[in-house]
């Protein structure tokens, strides 16, 4: 526990000070925010950037020519560059701004609509969030193609034997979460992508739960698509990213049509602008895209080395303490996890636990976490989920654990 104490005392106190909400009370108790997998809190730099934008250069971009407009345009471009560097894409034009992971996934699934037929197969896994299930079910329905699902083992990890077998059927696409939002499992997607590419299968990665916790390198991964949300990584609401390989972007059709994505239009025909603009119809969420830059800068300034180490130690401490509570059963036991854990209790419904924790100022999630198929597989109606972030502390975990003990006794 040395690391926790060391970093905590120095750096984490400083980091916590940047998050105004962490100084507030819930039900007259100091807020203990342990629902970071749903959405993280935002540092002052992000919040202030939004105000700065509206107070100084709010403007629609690229639709004319005045100073406010070019300032906004430049700032949006800056975020695009920052995101591009953050995930190491070859080119910033491969970064498409969307309204969130869900929209990103819909763009990809819709992009395949013309390429699939009834002989084709789409692969998902049992770990997926609804947002990485329903668009694909819809695609399979529209194209009469088949959906196959990679099962999980008892540990909560993907069944690689199944993967090796199913891949021989030459599915068209594998859509997979990088990290599970229920069990925390980090999938070995680099391995899966390698196997898939041997068979010319495209791979989509839902990185919503991965991106706040460790560095992602799309060139090294060699994934064909990758998506994530700003709001789960200290950034503002309503902004998502879709990364795609260059050659895919050229041919993929957009999900939405309208202003700003068009080069030339008459009532008979229209011509797309080049990507990323082709996929960014209408006025974008300019303020929040601009402030998203500050969220990535926040992460960059701390650095993933520190983030990973601190979160890992804190998470190990959490797991160890939860394991000491006999009424609690932790769901899954994968080797590599993002710092989130689901559990149930023998003598209390998750809903009651969540309500009681909330009464003590502790925010956790309860329910099916938008992963009902996984719940069904695990034979659960819901769990309590505790998910950590860089600003959480050992003291908060101690308070969670002592409150849990009180509730469950």
């Amino acid at each position, binding site marked *: 526990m040395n690391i926790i104490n060391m970093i905590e005392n120095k750096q984490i106190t400083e980091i916590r000070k940047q998050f105004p909400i962490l100084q507030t009370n819930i039900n007259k108790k100091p807020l203990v925010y342990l629902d970071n997998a749903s959405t993280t809190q935002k540092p002052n730099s992000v919040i202030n950037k939004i105000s700065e934008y509206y107070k100084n250069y709010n403007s629609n971009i690229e639709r004319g020519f005045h100073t406010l407009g070019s300032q906004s345009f430049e700032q949006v471009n800056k975020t695009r560059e920052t995101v591009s560097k953050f995930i190491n894409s070859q080119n910033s034009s491969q970064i498409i701004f969307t309204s969130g992971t869900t929209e990103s996934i819909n763009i990809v699934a819709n992009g395949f609509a013309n390429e699939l037929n009834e002989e084709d197969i789409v692969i998902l896994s049992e770990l997926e969030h609804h947002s990485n299930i329903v668009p694909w079910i819809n695609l399979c329905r529209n194209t009469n193609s088949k959906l196959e699902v990679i099962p999980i083992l008892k540990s909560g990890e993907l069944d690689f034997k199944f993967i090796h077998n199913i891949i021989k059927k030459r599915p068209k696409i594998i859509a997979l979460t990088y990290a599970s939002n229920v069990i925390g499992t980090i999938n070995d997607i680099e391995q899966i992508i390698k196997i898939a590419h041997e068979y010319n299968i495209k791979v989509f990665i839902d990185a919503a739960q991965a991106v706040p916790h460790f560095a992602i390198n799309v060139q090294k991964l060699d994934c064909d698509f990758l998506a994530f949300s700003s709001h789960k990584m200290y950034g503002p609401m309503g902004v998502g990213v879709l990364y795609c390989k260059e050659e895919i972007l050229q041919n993929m059709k957009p999900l939405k049509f309208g202003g700003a994505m068009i080069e030339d239009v008459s009532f008979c025909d229209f011509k797309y602008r080049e990507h990323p603009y082709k996929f960014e119809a209408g006025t974008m969420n300019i303020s929040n895209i601009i402030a998203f830059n500050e969220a990535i800068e926040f992460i960059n300034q701390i650095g993933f080395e520190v983030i990973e180490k601190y979160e890992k130690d804190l998470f190990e401490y959490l797991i160890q303490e939860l394991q000491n509570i006999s009424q609690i059963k932790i769901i899954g036991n994968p080797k590599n996890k993002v710092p989130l854990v689901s559990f149930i209790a023998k003598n209390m419904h998750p809903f*009651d636990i969540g*309500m009681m924790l909330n*009464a003590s100022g502790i925010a956790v999630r309860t329910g099916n976490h938008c992963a009902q198929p996984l719940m069904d597989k695990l034979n659960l109606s819901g769990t309590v989920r505790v998910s950590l972030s860089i600003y959480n502390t050992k003291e908060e975990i101690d308070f969670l654990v002592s409150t849990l003990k009180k509730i469950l006794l």
Partner: protein
Amino acid sequence: MLKEKKDIDRIQNDIIEEFQIFENDMEETLEYLIELGNNLSILNTEYKIDQNKIKGCLSNVWLICKKEDGYLFFEADSDTKIIKGLISLLIKIFSGQTSQNILNSNLYFVEKIGLKNMISSKRISGYSNIVDKILNLAKSYKD
């Protein structure tokens, strides 16, 4: 019947008064609800069927209604204790009332005992679905 004499608003006011000792302390309020839930008489398993289940709740909630001498009587169960406690209050309010009284009623006690959460995130707690079910039953038992 005794119940008849206490109208719905008086029972609600009694409940609000009863909860006042907690001074809006959420923890104590919930603990008391759990206690109330534990004291609710158990619903016979024969009634715990899909037909009696209330849709749209995070947890399983079953509710049945019987009519005797023109008055409606409710029984219910849930696998979450807090919801069960809340239901026990609803039963206290509505059991033994006429359909007409129930349909004319206006519920306000939940907000007043500091459980606004329960109402606003209604899709999760299912509180409003339970109330809707009671109203629908009252309507169907109306002559």
